[in-house]
């Protein structure tokens, strides 16, 4: 299983497409930095089945997005980020 991090807003559609295409069922996708804009309820993204999508709390809060996230997306803190790295065999950064 792979942990993917994505740090760009959804307007970078090519990056988002490549990232989603590279996800397998059981993988986790962690949205960080500007990647947290992919988590907004107003612009729902069709996440691949079986992929756990979460967003980094500090980046969500920094951008004032706390109340705007899609309900399917959980928030994780820095310690959880480290934990997710341990739980997955490899980490890929999409940036």
């Amino acid at each position, binding site marked *: 299983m792979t942990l993917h991090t994505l740090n760009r807003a959804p307007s970078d559609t090519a990056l988002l497409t490549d990232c989603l295409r590279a996800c397998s069922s059981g993988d986790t996708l962690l949205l960080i930095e500007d990647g947290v804009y992919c988590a907004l309820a107003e612009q729902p993204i069709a996440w691949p089945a079986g992929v756990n999508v979460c967003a980094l709390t500090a980046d969500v809060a920094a951008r004032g997005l706390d109340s705007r996230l899609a309900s399917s997306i959980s928030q994780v803190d820095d310690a959880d980020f480290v934990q997710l790295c341990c739980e997955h065999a490899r*980490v890929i*950064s999409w940036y």
Partner: protein
Amino acid sequence: MIFSLLVYAAPHSHQGAESAYRFAVACLAQGHSIHRVFFYGDGIHGASALAAPPQDEPNLPARWQALAQAHELDLVVCIAAAVRRGLLDANEARRYEKPGHNLHQGFELSGLGQLAEAAIVSDRMITFGA
């Protein structure tokens, strides 16, 4: 677990430089070890001794150095990426006959091989990109 980090984002241009530092702190707080932090591409600017951000903004090179001192971290800056961008230690300044050097204390210049070595010996390699 043993982690290594690849910092490819330049401080102040990209949040990635700061994210890498925060990750390192969280990593060490959980008792994991960090084998190496490797600075590459524009990320090398995170090792400048001449960075002078405003007083009410964090000085990333200084914080890396403090973290490295407290946890005996290996902070390695890609020598080829650094030298072309004007980040030199005393040795390279001599080698290229330049008038000064500006690598922050606590960092060292070395080859890209150190990135490969870090990935080989660490359990996880995490990239912070730009």
